[in-house]
């Protein structure tokens, strides 16, 4: 009973032992009586709503346990209790009767002998009386005559009369047949013969036969033995009947009930008396009732355990130290592995037909190590177990995640539970997502590089590639059956196309061209009439891929399709041209200035990634949005914008945008946004950099500006003085008090200034505008609002 399942414990442990609960459940399940598990599983198997059952493959008959485990009546060669009791009684009675009879016989015999002796004494007395006169007168003849008269008595075997003082008998009578009888067969009596005066005359000796007494005694003895035997048999029969009624029959009923109980049948034995058997029957009935209730509770617990297992969605098998599966397994396991008890677990995971020799060897070594160590070492050993396997069968390929649990871990592990989770679909989705992510990342990466480089190289690549594909089509049209020179010509076109595609990270085009090169490689060795068709399909597909890449580029470029029309011109040559036309008319100079303009996006293309990086470093969540409106900026401004944006954005991240917590506390979205946009006006192009942060800390700037820029009465303008930081604590991104001053200097050199609008808790807007007579001073329109 020490391994019995305690149903009172189960709910408490299920709720408290969350980790490893499966092993606990399994252990509890295993501790259930085998017959019960079999019975319940068999019973539930008919219920189609239970998809996950133990012993579900070959359930045992529900009624009886295996014959070997079933209790059987004990076969006794000594017969039943009644028979043994009767025999014992008979033997005992026979012994006692025999002793009694023998004793009675002895007494009877003694009595007979004594009676005979008395009778003989009487005869001797009478004879002595009658012989006395004759002997006194010495009449020997008369003595002899009287002695001879004794022959009338057949029992007197011998009579001898001895005269006083005579050595020889005076008279003697002897029956011829009985003179030498044995001592036990006769008795002798001696009686004196005296005269009336009392003088002793002699004596008479009689020897008397006991034959008649012996015959009578023999008859009596036979009668007594017969009676004793009859008494013993009667007594034994009576005892047998009583024992059968009082002991054997009730015990037989209890035996039958015990067998029924062992078979799981509801049993009760009748209680007819209040003796020991009656009390035993009552106790048995109570026990049967308790067992039945207990089995019901266990069955209920079993169903609950099975329900839990049903929802785990794992294929579960158990294997022993030899790596062989035990009987316990889930229905899902039976469906996936299909093997029964005794099969090798390594064969299930890595069938020899799969050729996974190393995996098999490693798994077998792991099983050996797992069972060689104790339970404490299992945690370490399990790290060396395979955690996933691709399970191949004729009609399916499953990806399984594997987990291992030790069962009954004592000093040495006895069994290991293997839980296999089908993750085929999950892995497929993960791979698909990862592939898409990679493709997307590659496209974005390529496009960013293209955009930052101006795009004209990509435009040239597209144009050249389309021309190459045109050449290929012409070759294919001219040579329906590809000859060697045509193959070589095609090879050259594809080879160059592949190299160029690789430069632009166009992996799909590169892969397709590689395939086509393989086809051409084969056609080099052996001309194939179908080769033309295959290559033509490839060319068409490449044209589609090329168009796709071009569309991606155009979609990503702020200038749109116009980006394909871009041309890179060296700044030095443009400046030389401007210088050479210094004295030319204004219209020509304006045209050249226009020609020298650069797209704003050239200065912003790499900023989104940089902003994300800077924000992460500052522990904030910031996104940069660049409004793609195709604005072009003067070349002088374009030359400094990179550095200016860097200063302004780092400053905005460092102290303009709040932390996520602060923003959420202020009712703002957790992610701060910085926007860059371009505005065209009569005065020229202005650039707007705005954030939705907390705005400038005017008091802090004023405090730090003291003594540095005493003439600067506006705090915001003081922020652009060198040495005045807009942030209280100097950090990695900003705080040195140099960035904004440097930005202003850069902009001034390009003929631009900064207008600031800062609104408390709403954000800051920096407007980079061309210098003119009206806006050379820094103005803070938002300052008033902040102070209010």
């Amino acid at each position, binding site marked *: 009973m020490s391994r019995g399942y305690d149903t009172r414990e189960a709910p408490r442990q299920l709720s408290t032992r969350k980790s490893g609960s499966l092993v606990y459940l399994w252990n509890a399940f295993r501790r259930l009586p085998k017959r019960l598990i079999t019975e319940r599983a068999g019973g539930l198997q008919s219920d189609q709503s239970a998809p996950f059952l133990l012993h579900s493959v070959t359930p045992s008959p529900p009624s009886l346990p295996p014959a070997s485990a079933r209790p059987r009546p004990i076969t006794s060669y000594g017969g039943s209790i009644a028979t043994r009791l009767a025999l014992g009684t008979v033997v005992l009675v026979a012994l006692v009767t025999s002793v009694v009879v023998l004793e009675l016989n002895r007494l009877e015999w003694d009595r007979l002998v004594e009676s005979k002796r008395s009778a003989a004494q009487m005869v001797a007395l009478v004879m002595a009386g009658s012989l006395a006169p004759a002997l006194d007168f010495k009449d020997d003849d008369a003595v002899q005559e009287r002695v001879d008269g004794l022959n009338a008595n057949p029992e007197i075997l011998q009579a001898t009369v001895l005269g006083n003082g005579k050595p020889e008998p005076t008279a003697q009578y002897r029956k011829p047949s009985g003179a030498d009888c044995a001592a036990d067969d006769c008795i002798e009596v001696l009686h004196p013969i005296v005269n009336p005066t009392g003088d002793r005359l002699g004596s008479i000796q009689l020897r008397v036969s006991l034959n008649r007494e012996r015959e009578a005694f023999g008859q009596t003895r036979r009668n007594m033995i017969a009676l004793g035997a009859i008494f013993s048999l009667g007594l034994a029969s009576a005892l047998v009947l009583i024992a059968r009624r009082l002991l054997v029959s009730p015990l037989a009923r209890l035996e039958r009930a015990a067998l029924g109980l062992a078979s799981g049948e509801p049993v009760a034995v009748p209680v007819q008396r209040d003796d020991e058997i009656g009390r035993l029957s009552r106790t048995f009935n109570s026990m049967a009732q308790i067992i039945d209730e207990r089995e019901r509770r266990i069955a209920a617990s079993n169903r609950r355990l099975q329900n839990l297992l049903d929802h785990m969605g794992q294929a579960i098998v158990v294997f022993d130290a030899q790596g062989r599966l035990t009987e316990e397994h889930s229905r899902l396991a039976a469906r996936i592995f299909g093997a029964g008890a005794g099969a090798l677990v390594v064969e299930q995971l890595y069938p020899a037909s799969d050729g996974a*020799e*190393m*995996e098999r060897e*490693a798994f077998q070594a792991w099983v050996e190590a797992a069972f060689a160590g104790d339970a404490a070492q299992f945690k370490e050993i399990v790290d060396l177990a395979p955690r996933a396997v691709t399970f191949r069968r004729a009609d399916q390929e499953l990806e399984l995640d594997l987990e291992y649990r030790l069962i009954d871990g004592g000093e040495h592990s006895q069994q290991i539970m293997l839980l296999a989770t089908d993750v085929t679909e999950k892995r497929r989705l993960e791979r698909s997502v990862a592939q898409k992510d990679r493709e997307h990342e590659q496209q974005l990466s390529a496009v960013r590089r293209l955009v930052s480089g101006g795009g004209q190289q990509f435009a040239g690549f597209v144009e050249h590639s389309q021309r190459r594909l045109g050449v290929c089509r012409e070759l294919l049209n001219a040579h329906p059956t590809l000859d060697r020179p045509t193959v070589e010509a095609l090879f050259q076109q594809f080879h160059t196309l592949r190299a160029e595609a690789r430069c632009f990270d166009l992996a799909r085009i590169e892969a397709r061209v590689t395939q086509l090169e393989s086809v051409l490689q084969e056609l080099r060795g052996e001309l194939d009439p179908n080769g033309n068709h295959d290559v033509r399909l490839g060319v068409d597909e490449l044209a589609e891929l090329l168009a796709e890449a071009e569309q991606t580029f155009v979609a990503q470029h702020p200038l749109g399709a116009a980006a394909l029309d871009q041309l890179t011109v060296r700044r030095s040559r443009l400046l030389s041209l401007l210088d050479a036309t210094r004295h030319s008319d204004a219209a020509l100079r304006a045209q050249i200035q226009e020609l020298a303009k650069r797209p704003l996006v050239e200065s912003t293309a790499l900023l989104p990634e940089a902003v994300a990086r800077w924000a992460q470093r500052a522990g904030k969540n910031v996104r940069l949005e660049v409004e793609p409106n195709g604005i072009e900026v003067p070349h002088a401004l374009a030359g400094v914008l990179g550095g200016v944006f860097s200063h302004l954005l780092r400053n905005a991240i460092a102290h303009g945008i709040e932390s996520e917590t602060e923003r959420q506390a202020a009712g703002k979205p957790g992610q701060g946004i910085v926007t860059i946009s371009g505005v065209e006006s009569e005065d020229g192009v202005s650039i707007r950099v705005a954030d939705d942060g907390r705005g400038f800390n005017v008091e802090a700037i004023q405090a730090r500006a003291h003594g540095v820029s005493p003439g600067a009465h506006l705090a915001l303008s003081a922020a652009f003085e060198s040495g005045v930081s807009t942030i209280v604590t100097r950090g990695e991104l900003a705080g040195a008090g140099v960035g904004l001053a440097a930005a202003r200097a850069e902009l001034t050199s390009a003929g631009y200034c900064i207008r600031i609008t800062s609104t408390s808790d709403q954000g800051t807007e920096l407007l980079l505008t061309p210098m003119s007579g009206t806006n050379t001073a820094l103005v803070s329109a938002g300052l008033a609002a902040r102070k209010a």
Partner: protein
Amino acid sequence: MSVAGKVLVIDDSEMVLERVKSRLQRESYEVATTSQPVGAARHLLLCDLVILDFHMPGMNGQEVLRSLKMLGASSGAAPLYFLYTSDKVLSRGYRELGFDGTLLNKGDDESLVEQVAVALRLAKLRKKLAPPKE
């Protein structure tokens, strides 16, 4: 999934070495590489797995293997020696050649990672199961 371990790769191609090293390091393995079999023994100590190319100039993998095993045994190092080749016929006979295993699909980095993980597990398990030294 990955089991930490130290791997020595011997191949005459620097390109293969660089690829294998880069890929295995991404899986957090400690990787040593050499294109010179002579002198490779100094990497053997504390090494769990040796990945060996077979066709190398001047010396084939079997000779290198024999030499490494001899030197390894004398220094107490007992790594597993795995053949790394794309030659399928050669792969099948790895046991006869004296290797503990073979890594298939040479050039397929993902397959390499999976196989190295298995090989390292095997190496650690063999060490665990080995009788303790006197």
